[in-house]
């Protein structure tokens, strides 16, 4: 992009990311409903457009045309700020995701760190939403979301630290660059550490929990907490939370594919590019949905036990084993 003023890059990033986040959410809502339908042996959306493909557009128009109601005695500022905050951080994490060899908004050396930094701000938005709504269910849900995110950030970041030790860089594009074909994917135990498949599992489970997806969707457990932190939100306030959630699902799966499945690289080495990242990521998103419609919701105790008793010990063993292996060989 040399030769263009800097502002064009920024504009292209903003317009591209906003369009991508919107389309991604529309597609994923449709896909989620289709997957849910077929797993329950129904059809899912089918009336609006062929195979119901523009159902999400109709839903979006409905959401946009609705009035934004601020509940009485809610904290008006925080209540309005929370959906904006979740959306802002969701867009910010797209800055360093390498969609293709040259298709990245800003190829930072610490790209990985930027993503985790902004993604962890998202939980603050959930807390603000829960607190600002002046609703007891929202507060319970917000505290749950925070404790869950704190619990799962630990094993996730330990795993990421392990990955950084193996690949030796925090630049996501370089990490992808090291995984030229199927055999070099970092999911396989011969590419640096025997614990890599375990690291993949830990990272994927943590990504599920960080994005508040089932079976870890304690934050919006509809059978006990109405709708959790977005109980009081309607119209586009709710819509922004949804856009943010699906953006994070995409980011979580994209990071998994970048770390372990070779990102934009082709498994066989032909024609690397953005399509490979999208294929891998959406396959992982499908797995996320498949998991959601298979397993019942865990309890908050089960959720925290899984993190502190299983994922954290395994992540630490992974770290030590990997460090030892790297030191010895």
């Amino acid at each position, binding site marked *: 992009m040399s030769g263009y003023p800097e502002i064009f890059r920024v504009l292209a990033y903003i317009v591209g990311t906003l369009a991508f986040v919107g389309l991604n959410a529309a597609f994923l809502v449709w896909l989620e409903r289709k997957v849910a*339908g*077929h*797993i*329950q*042996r*129904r059809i899912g959306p*089918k009336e609006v457009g062929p195979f119901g493909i523009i159902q999400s557009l109709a839903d979006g128009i409905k959401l946009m045309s609705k009035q934004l109601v601020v509940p009485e005695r809610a904290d008006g500022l925080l209540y309005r700020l929370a959906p904006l905050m979740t959306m802002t951080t969701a867009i910010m994490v797209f800055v360093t995701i390498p969609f293709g060899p040259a298709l990245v908004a800003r190829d930072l050396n610490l790209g990985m760190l930027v993503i985790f930094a902004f993604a962890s701000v998202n939980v603050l938005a959930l807390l603000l939403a829960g607190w600002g709504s002046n609703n007891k269910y929202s507060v319970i849900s917000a505290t749950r979301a925070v404790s869950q995110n704190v619990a799962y950030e630990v094993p996730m970041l330990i795993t990421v630290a392990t990955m950084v030790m193996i690949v030796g860089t925090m630049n996501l594009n370089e990490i992808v660059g090291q995984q030229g074909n199927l055999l070099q994917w970092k999911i396989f135990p011969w590419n640096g550490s025997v614990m890599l498949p375990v690291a993949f599992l830990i990272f994927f489970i943590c990504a599920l929990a960080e994005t508040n997806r089932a079976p870890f969707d304690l934050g919006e457990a509809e059978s006990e907490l109405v709708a959790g932190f977005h109980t009081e939100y309607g119209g586009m306030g709710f819509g922004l939370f949804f856009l943010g959630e699906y953006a994070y699902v995409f980011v979580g799966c994209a990071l998994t594919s970048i770390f372990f499945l070779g990102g934009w690289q082709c498994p066989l080495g032909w024609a690397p590019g953005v399509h490979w990242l999208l294929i891998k990521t959406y396959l992982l998103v499908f797995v996320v949905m*498949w998991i959601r419609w*298979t397993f019942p919701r865990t309890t908050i105790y089960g959720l925290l036990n899984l993190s502190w008793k299983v994922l954290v010990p395994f992540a630490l063993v992974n770290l030590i084993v990997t460090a030892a292996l790297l030191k010895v060989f």
Partner: protein
Amino acid sequence: MSGYFQELYEGGKSLLVGMGITFKYMLQPVVTMQYPRQSVKMTPRYRGHIELVADEKGNNKCIVCGMCQRNCPSGCISLAGKKPEGGKKKVLTQYQLDFTTCSLCGSCVEGCPTGALDFSKEYNLAGLTRQEYIFDLLKRFEERKR
């Protein structure tokens, strides 16, 4: 300590089994009926409201004996007939069913000496007033004939 790993192994295995089942279900054909577009064909034993039955010539079999009217425990059937000029048998001129009080007991169908009554397969009934459920069966019969 061995219990810990055994629990992990068995738990993980059961999760995979569950995902296998849902994946299999996802590939199987759907079992739902897309209701306003398609509708179910009712079983032969289904009891809708009663309906007049046609004979081979397409006329109704009713001889206006009034057995159905007398058999009905709710008194929801009222019918009338008259002898046509030069004819011997009575001919049905009016058959009214008040479906709001009908309990679908079937005494009228069973008591009919000529088998002129049968249950219909109608289940899409919805209305805003009681009057909509006072059916003129003779009119419905003529409409069906056309």
